[in-house]
């Protein structure tokens, strides 16, 4: 069975079947041999379809992962285009439907390029070889004499003859698909787009003229608009409702009760009363006029301040051991200088600029949806379960996302639309307001951390103990779960890279009373904050330079040995993606050098300070130096940020800079302002007035990004810039003011 397949005769996406089109797919799912030509195979066994060349030369490449500002709709197709020898200007990118035949489509944890880089290259290289062979056959010359050095053409070197990709498409489609052994991937030196600056986001032109279509821009004939009044407390249900006033609103048609989920909540609707109207505004207005009485469930007792106290207490006591080196207890008993610190970070909401929204049309046993989803296959499963249909009968069109950050990995908002469309026998557009988005989020867990170290005369710890307590995201599927999942505790906690002979990492129990879901960069946000703040505290206690101290703490160059742990390494093998301390130290050295660390910190004026933090996440190494200015009113300004990043092989350097620049702003938002609180089970914050995100005048003014040249396999880019930002900022605040920030957001700490 071949990895790459010629499927020119099987059609491509929707309605693009035409004669003379050359199409290549790839088989991602092991299955029986491909059915004979012309015979329809069952969906899970179909090869995914990756590229087609039309007789006019247009190359269509499928983007199967979600574009949400991560650049992936450009980054993967351009890898295929590069290997194919295509001119990027002649490439059309089509977004794939949700379908298991594409393999993983869950666009989170920064692994799109890592997982699909090789497949894109192989598919492109197969197409190139078939084009070359078709041209060689046409000219009657050896294929070895032909190349694609001129984009979009095959040229016969000795004679100078050339044929365009479009002219060759039909003949190429008749060539046998080369085996993997025959494929010759371009050497790095021949890459035309990968690692180059000569391309921009595929949708950039549409994004600046208002033509880019997001979830909120979808519309189909006959659709009605819905806004849902949801229970403030998780699990509550409608006791009674009075829609008399709501129905008087101009444009409101009716109200519909949505049943509250049966636990666990998963991706199901929260329940409530939907107002159906003929435009969004009328639906919002009608909802305002609804009177609903709720039956509150057990979560009404949740108060985030009580959680903070309980979790902080839990972190003071022994928990489950995640990693254990040497004998921490014995080392502490030996006596010496002991430092300990407690850190706390609150719930966060993703707050993408585009709130959750979807158009769903349930008819004839199928569900058609247009949704800004990070996980279309989960959407298929969720809707199938709710509607009692098959997942393959859920046709999911993935739109552009106006930001995701993890929120749109959950499908509850699409599920609401599906339930309503099924009841109303009409297409429904479900629109969430900003208040809905912030009050009914899947919240980033709140975390309490306790760290303790014993330091010797040189300031380096001989023993180190770390405990982390937070609500695990497994609570979405099991309400009784008390401990975080392995991946959650791994990120930034199992993999603390310090060279300390006695080292123990623990995890404590915590119960979730709100829906839990990850914000961009997951547990790394708080783990990096705790670990990198504590490292800075130790450096200052030892009167050492924080950069030199951190380098010493990491210690000798090595691949970290995780034996004795269940470390998952972001699902990647440690052979291919070891935790390489040399790479971590390298980014620290670069960030420090570029920031003028040392020289600059002595030159900075009163109220200014520099801080550094470094962190590996999603297999990428990032170090960030933040410069702060704390004004006389105690307000923090961020004039400069220097970030060094080693993400292995980079497809788009500009996108890496984008993501790091954006991560600094995202990090500034959560560090300066990010806080969601709950009282009696209800979320207090509701919009950007009480859940602020950084505006231009408070965001980092200048972010300078330095990319480490690397031939290592590609690693994550979308998230790894976030974790080091908050600790670097708080370490800078300490340098500027002598005030140590141990709780986020920073506004909790009085600086003057």
């Amino acid at each position, binding site marked *: 069975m071949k990895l790459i397949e010629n499927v020119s005769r099987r059609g491509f996406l929707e309605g693009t079947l035409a004669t003379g089109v050359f199409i290549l797919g790839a088989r991602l799912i092991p299955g029986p041999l491909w059915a004979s030509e012309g015979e329809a195979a069952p969906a899970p066994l179909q090869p995914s379809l990756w590229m087609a060349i039309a007789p006019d030369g247009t190359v269509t490449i499928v983007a199967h992962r979600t*574009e*949400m*500002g*991560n*650049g992936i709709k450009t980054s993967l197709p351009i890898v295929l285009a590069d290997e194919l020898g295509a001119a990027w200007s002649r490439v059309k990118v089509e977004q794939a439907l949700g379908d298991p035949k594409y393999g993983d489509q869950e666009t989170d944890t920064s692994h799109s390029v890592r997982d699909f880089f090789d497949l894109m290259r192989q598919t492109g290289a197969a197409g190139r070889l078939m084009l070359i062979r078709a041209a060689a056959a046409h000219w009657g010359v050896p294929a070895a004499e032909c190349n694609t050095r001129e984009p979009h053409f095959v040229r016969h070197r000795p004679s100078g003859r050339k044929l365009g990709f479009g002219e060759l498409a039909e003949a190429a489609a008749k060539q046998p698909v080369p085996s993997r052994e025959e494929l010759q991937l371009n050497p790095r030196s021949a890459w035309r787009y990968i690692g180059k600056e000569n391309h*921009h*986001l595929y*949708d*950039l032109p*549409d*994004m*600046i*003229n*208002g*033509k*880019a279509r997001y979830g*909120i*821009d979808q*519309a189909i004939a006959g659709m009605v*608009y819905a806004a849902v009044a949801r229970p403030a407390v998780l699990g509550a249900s409608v006791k009674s409702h009075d829609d008399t006033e709501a129905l008087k609103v*101009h*444009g409101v048609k009716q109200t519909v009760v949505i049943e509250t989920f049966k636990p666990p909540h998963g991706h199901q609707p929260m329940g409530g009363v939907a107002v159906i109207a003929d*435009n*969004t*505004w*009328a639906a919002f*207005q009608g909802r305002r006029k609804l009177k609903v009485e709720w039956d509150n469930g057990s979560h009404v007792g949740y108060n985030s301040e009580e959680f903070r106290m309980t979790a902080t207490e839990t972190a003071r006591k022994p928990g489950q051991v995640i990693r254990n080196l040497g004998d921490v207890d014995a080392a502490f008993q030996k006596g010496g200088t002991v430092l300990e610190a407690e850190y706390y970070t609150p719930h966060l909401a993703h*707050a*993408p*600029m*585009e*709130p959750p929204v979807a158009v769903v049309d349930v008819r004839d046993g199928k569900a058609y949806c247009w949704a800004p989803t990070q996980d279309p296959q989960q959407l298929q499963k969720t809707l199938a379960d709710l509607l009692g249909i098959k997942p393959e009968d859920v046709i999911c069109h993935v739109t*552009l*996302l*106006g*930001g*995701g*950050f993890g929120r749109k990995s959950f499908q509850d908002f699409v599920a609401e639309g599906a339930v309503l469309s099924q009841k109303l026998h009409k297409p429904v557009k479900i*629109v969430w307001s*900003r208040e809905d988005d912030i009050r009914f989020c899947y919240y980033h867990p709140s975390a309490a951390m306790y760290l303790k170290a014993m330091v010797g005369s040189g300031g380096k710890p001989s023993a180190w103990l770390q405990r982390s307590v937070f609500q695990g995201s497994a609570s979405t599927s099991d309400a009784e779960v008390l401990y975080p999942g392995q991946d959650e505790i791994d990120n930034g906690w199992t993999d603390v890279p310090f060279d300390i002979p006695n080292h123990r990492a623990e995890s404590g129990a915590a119960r979730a009373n709100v829906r839990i879901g990850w914000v961009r960069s997951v547990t790394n946000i708080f783990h990096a904050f705790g670990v990198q703040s504590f490292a800075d505290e130790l450096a200052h206690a030892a009167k050492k330079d924080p950069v030199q101290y951190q380098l010493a703490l990491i210690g000798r160059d090595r691949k970290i040995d995780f034996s004795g742990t269940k470390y998952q390494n972001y699902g990647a093998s440690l052979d291919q993606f070891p935790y390489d301390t040399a790479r971590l130290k390298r980014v620290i050295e670069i960030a420090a050098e570029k920031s003028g660390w040392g020289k600059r910190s002595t030159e900075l004026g009163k109220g200014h300070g520099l801080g550094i933090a470094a962190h590996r996440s999603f297999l990428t190494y990032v170090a960030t130096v933040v410069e702060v200015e704390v004004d006389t009113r105690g307000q923090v300004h961020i004039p400069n940020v220097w970030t060094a990043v080693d993400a292995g092989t980079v497809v788009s350097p*500009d996108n890496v800079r*984008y993501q790091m*620049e*954006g*991560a*600094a*702003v*995202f990090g500034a938002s959560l560090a300066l302002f990010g806080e969601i609180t709950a009282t009696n089970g209800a979320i207090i914050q509701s*919009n*950007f*007035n009480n859940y602020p*995100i*950084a*505006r*231009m*005048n408070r*965001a*980092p*003014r200048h*972010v300078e990004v330095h990319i480490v040249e690397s031939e290592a396999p590609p690693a994550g880019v979308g998230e790894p810039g976030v974790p080091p930002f908050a600790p670097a900022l708080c370490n800078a605040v300490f340098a500027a003011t002598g005030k140590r920030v141990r709780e986020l957001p920073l506004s909790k700490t009085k600086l003057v």
Partner: protein
Amino acid sequence: MIVFKVNGKARTFDGDPDMPLLWYLRDVAGLTGTKFGCGMALCGACTVHKNGAAIRSCSTPMKTVSGSEITTIEGIAPMHPVQAAWMEIRVPQCGYCQSGQIMQAIALLKKNKNPSDQEIDTAMSGNLCRCGTYQRIRAAIHQAAKHQAAKHPAAKETA
């Protein structure tokens, strides 16, 4: 009956006079380039021009647009210098807030041909970007100012 213009075209509206202009543009007129972000004039995603000045359409009731000239992102001349600068600097990430950012930036440059960093911050701080493109927005506004000055030498002298 409310009579007004959108992108130069005469329009009438006889629905709920309290309906914000944003929802008229998006749901009634089908002009979806203008985005919804907060509904409270806190984020600027819905920024359009009313008689040339930047306003937040989410908080502008239809009854207040009578007789006015509304311009949305769809009504901006193709490749306006601000859009050209947005392309060159590659400003957008997810792109969702960028219609509002561009409309705000055009209004700023109309009033101030060569804004300083400080002036840009003041004018643009009502426009949120969750992806964090502020640094590029600032650079693109400077670039657009240069483009405009090059196109109109007279503007250079007053700048």
